[in-house]
């Protein structure tokens, strides 16, 4: 089957700074696809390019088989976008925001009346329908933005860091809704730098950095491929921990700040060692996508 998004050799330069460097990406229909990367990796630029909102420096973008940005209008009519920063219309109430936005898609208020009722229920904002935007919490705004993105029954939903800055309750609620949308057969394309989010939601993902794809696959495959299954995070005086862990065989140890991350296939001997070092505290957990991410993108800070 034809991929919903098909990107080949995409490059984008801002002056002499290269933000995307020959990116190849195919998003199959009906999956939740993640684009992961540190800040400044090129995630948002990628999404803007694929919606035809920014001219590209090279490469080819096809969405629904149509060439972008030439087919921009037709393609965007079939997409829903949840941007990173809320841009709800502050001049309107909740329901007016949805009505006015429907107008941008050429849908009349009468035609979308039922749809709006449905969407408000879907994001649990029915009782706030007439509330002005200024009175909404961050979580409510995000949910409304999500409802707004669904007004045109999009086949492809694009979400740029959908749960950044939200509390755990709202995040879980949004995840549940996104899974429901995928169940309905829609394609989801989301960027995030929350690895737990990607692990929970994405069927497939790419990790990008410096405008290039570092790795692609399912979260489980990537974890299996790149990191040992178990992790011990050891905390304590750096020298003490260092000497205690010095002789551990079959363990890959990374020191980040004051924590030793010990990646291993079998943690039993390490646990026995740590039993004898009461001055050290530790956390034993299965390895996660975050470990893969840090291994691939490095530890230095980004902004």
């Amino acid at each position: 089957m034809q991929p919903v998004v098909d990107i080949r050799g995409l490059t984008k330069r801002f002056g002499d700074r290269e933000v995307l460097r020959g990116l190849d990406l195919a998003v199959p229909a009906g999956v939740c696809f993640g684009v992961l990367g540190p800040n400044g990796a090129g995630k948002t630029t990628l999404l803007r390019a694929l919606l035809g909102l920014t001219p590209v420096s090279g490469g080819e973008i096809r969405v629904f088989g149509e060439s972008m940005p030439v087919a921009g209008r037709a393609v965007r009519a079939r997409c829903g976008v949840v941007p990173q920063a809320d841009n709800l219309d502050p001049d309107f109430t909740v329901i007016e925001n949805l009505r006015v936005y429907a107008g941008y898609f050429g849908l009349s208020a009468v035609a979308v009346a039922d749809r709006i009722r449905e969407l408000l229920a879907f994001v649990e904002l029915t009782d706030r329908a007439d509330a002005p935007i200024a009175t909404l919490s961050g979580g409510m705004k995000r949910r409304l933005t999500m409802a707004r993105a669904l007004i045109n029954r999009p086949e492809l939903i694009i979400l740029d860091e959908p749960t950044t800055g939200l509390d755990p309750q709202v995040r879980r609620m949004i995840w549940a809704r996104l899974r429901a949308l995928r169940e309905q057969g829609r394609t989801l394309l989301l960027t995030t730098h929350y690895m737990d989010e990607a692990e929970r939601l994405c069927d497939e993902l790419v990790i990008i950095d410096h405008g290039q794809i570092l790795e692609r696959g399912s979260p489980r495959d990537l974890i299996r491929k790149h990191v040992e299954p178990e992790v011990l995070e050891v905390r304590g005086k750096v020298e003490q921990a260092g000497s205690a862990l010095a002789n551990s065989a079959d363990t890959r140890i990374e020191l980040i700040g004051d924590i030793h991350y010990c990646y291993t296939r079998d943690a039993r001997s390490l646990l026995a060692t740590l039993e004898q070092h009461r001055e050290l505290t530790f956390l034993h957990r299965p390895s996660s996508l975050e470990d893969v991410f840090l291994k691939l993108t490095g530890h230095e800070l980004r902004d």
Partner: protein
Amino acid sequence: MQNTLRPRFRHAAFAIWARNMLVLRKMMGPSIVINLGEPLLYMVGLGFGLGLYIGGQMDMPYLTFLASGFLAASAMNTATFEALFGVFTRMVPQKSYDAMLASPIEIADILAGEILYCATKSVIHGTGILVVATLLGAVSGWQALWVLPILFLVGLTFASLALIMTAFASSYAYFSYYTTLVMMPLMMLSGVFFPVSVLPEVMQNILYGLPLIHAVQLVRPLMAGLPVTDVALHLSVLVAYGVVGYLIGVRLVRKRLSV
């Protein structure tokens, strides 16, 4: 690529116009006071007061002269202010355009909708002034209603020109240059308050190359019940400024937002 870059008028512009009209409707109360109060002050103050001194030196009462000039200038002012402050607010701090651009709407549509709205505001404001002027006896007859479509065109022209400024602006403070250096001189010299014939000829020639004087010369005879002359010339200057302003504006805003 080419066909997405050439601005053309599309139905989508009305969605933007409708959005703005919905906001306007919410603020109808306060805006009626401003729409009627301001022209009333001008016409009573200047028209009657100053008119006493100027008396019958023209082919029409000074009140009619002033009201008609003021009407044309107010169409310019209303549209310009909306296209500066209103458009900037929606484009920059509110990020409304970002939301619109995620739909099938494009920048050319947004700006077409914006100038349609600015021109609509000019007509609404102008209607208020026309009513006040009629009540004060400054309007000679029904043919004065023809000024309403003229005001719409004047609104389109000046809104389009203001878009160029807005596209460049980094903050609201920037707009004072335009209002002080462009709008004020235009308003003072384009025959709004006194006939341009008293100005040196060089000055008159310059003024005829600028749009406001043409708006004044279309509106004034319609208000005074006199024959309108050089209609085609006046209309073409207004249309030309509008089209050029719009095309440059679209180009600049596209450059600003398509990053």
